[in-house]
């Protein structure tokens, strides 16, 4: 059984979602404890990737493929954990990520999602062209700590403010931290619209979340 977990861990490090899928299915088929598979296999693997990244030993595609593989494994094992009425254990935090309404650029958001995954966060990527209301609904549904909103165009930045306005309007502002990012955004803009966090790169966004949620 230990061997299966170390194989899972290695498959995450290798970013091989096919093998992760195969091994996760094996966990289910052989009625192995899915919580252990997540904790001892998937999470151990992504931790290694996160450390390698920090050390500058792996590149972005490595991290992103590991994060994808992680998603595949969790996609199979989480329903099983829920079915068995077990608890998955605590993640570092939950973040709902999306690109704002009117904007369809998603590379930056995807990189950020992968970095948060590699850092041990639970990421809910809700896609592009997302209305303020839908960010908030998803955040409420999953009990998110952070709402992360991306915008690449000067013409869609205002939609980041709409999320904050929506939260204020519905008395929800203190329930979530709102992070914004994207090419034309800045710390000054984040301050102006009342966002809790801004970062220029995915790495910095993770570091900021670490600091903010630790408080």
């Amino acid at each position, binding site marked *: 059984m230990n061997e299966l977990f170390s194989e899972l861990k290695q498959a995450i490090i290798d970013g091989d979602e096919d093998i992760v899928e195969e091994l996760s299915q094996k966990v289910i088929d052989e009625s192995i404890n899915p919580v252990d598979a997540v904790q001892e296999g998937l999470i151990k693997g992504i931790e290694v990737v996160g450390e390698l990244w920090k050390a*500058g030993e792996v*590149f*972005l*595609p490595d991290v992103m493929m590991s994060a994808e593989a992680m998603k595949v494994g969790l996609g199979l094992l989480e329903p099983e954990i829920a079915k068995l009425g077990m608890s998955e254990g605590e993640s570092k935090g939950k973040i709902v990520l999306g690109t704002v309404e009117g904007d*369809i650029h998603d*590379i*930056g958001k995807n*990189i950020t999602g992968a970095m948060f995954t590699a850092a041990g966060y639970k990421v809910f990527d809700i896609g592009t062209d997302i209305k303020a209301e839908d960010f908030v609904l998803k955040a409420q549904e999953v009990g998110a700590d952070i709402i992360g909103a991306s915008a690449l165009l*000067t*013409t869609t930045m*205002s939609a980041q403010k709409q999320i904050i306005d929506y939260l204020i309007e519905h008395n929800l502002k203190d329930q979530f931290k709102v992070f914004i990012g994207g*090419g*034309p955004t*800045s710390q*000054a*803009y984040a301050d102006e619209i009342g966002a809790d966090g801004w970062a220029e*790169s*995915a*790495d910095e966004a993770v570091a900021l979340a670490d600091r903010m949620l630790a408080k």
Partner: protein
Amino acid sequence: MLPKYNVLTEEQVLIIHNESIKILEEIGMDFEYEPALKVFRDQGLKVEGNRVHFTREFIEGKVKLAPAEFTLHARNPEHNLVCGGENIIYMPGYGAPFIQLADGTRRKSTMQDYENIVKLAGASKNLHMTGGTVAEPQDIPDEIRHLKMIYSSIKNSDKCFMGSAEGRERAQDSIEMAALLFGGKDVIKEKPVLISLINSLTPLKFDERMLGALMAYAEAGQAVVVASLVMAGSTGPAALVGTLALQNAEVLAGIALAQSINPGTPVVYGSTSALSDMRTGSLSIGSPETALFISASAQIARFYGVPSRSGGGLNDSKIVDAQAGYESMMTLMAASVTGINFVLHTAGILQYFMAISYEKFMMDDEMAGMLLHYLKGFNFDEDGLAYDAIAKVGPGGHFLTQKHTRKNHKKEFRTPQLSDRAAFDAWSKEKLDTNQRAHKQWQEVLANYVPPALDENIDKKLLEFIAQRS
């Protein structure tokens, strides 16, 4: 004029062409705009949802309809530009949301910045047109930004400028304003005055905003640059040839759409393909790979017989430093010597398109001047051979007191505008580096610039139009 050099063999160009055709036939492209899909359906192409499957015959036939060169008309006919052939057109950077200041700080760009850069481009001897969205005026509401920008481009210079690509409606506003300036839509349909930047959404998509603008301009007979920015490694493969094939497929599809709407629409083959840095994922434009994409794009456009757009003073540096200089010279030179015709982003760009800097603008203007001089090549007439002067001086002696020298150096040598050639001691008095010299220079140029007068009647009509549309 120096001959343009090639980086691909004829066979390699054909391979890229065939790969692009295979992409367009077998994978197809998404067009998120019903009127564009209708055009393709009417042309007999297979359209499923937003996905259009092209055929070799269609693409090759349509691209043949695009003119090899065209004239872009300016308010002052002396500034009319021929786009295509051996010609090169330099202009400012496009679309940056920030201004990087000489002291190292960065702020949002404003309408005042837009106006200043139009004026600096208007005053430049090396920039042929004033470009478009030279700074994103973030202090102006989005809905009327395009109107203010077009007006500023018209009012502050009599060189050619660009129209808005922000959807059909704003393209139409641009066309209306150009028609007011040039005497009617019929006039400009015969003589294109606007050129606009239509970008694909890599990989293999065009969005509604860009398609709406493309269709409006094509219908009005105005020129469009159809450009693709593949970020190799993220929005495209981590392979140079594969990236070129992907870019080429997108640009060909856009050109084919323009030609289907209005055969003979002036188009420019555009490329800004570059890299995704594999550590940060960010766009990296000041790279040797970008220079290869630029060079190959010039050649691929020649293969199709259409003008090309690429290059510029591209760099990833944050400030006006050595990196900004050496990266920009590599990409601007690659564009210039391989035969790119329309060089958007020639001047001002820093931070992979995110910022414009006035100081960088002056530095790039100097580089543009250096390259224009370089491109002139050699003079082989009697003055160029200078045998008589050589004979007169003979062995020993010097040429400084020769009439030939006094006269000919003005033709053959270029005097720098910004570079410092003083001796060390003379330089040491003020110790100004390039950034500091450029900082002084742009303020002087701006203070001395007088915009060419605009006909009062036309001015009034333009202002009325803006008031009515605001």
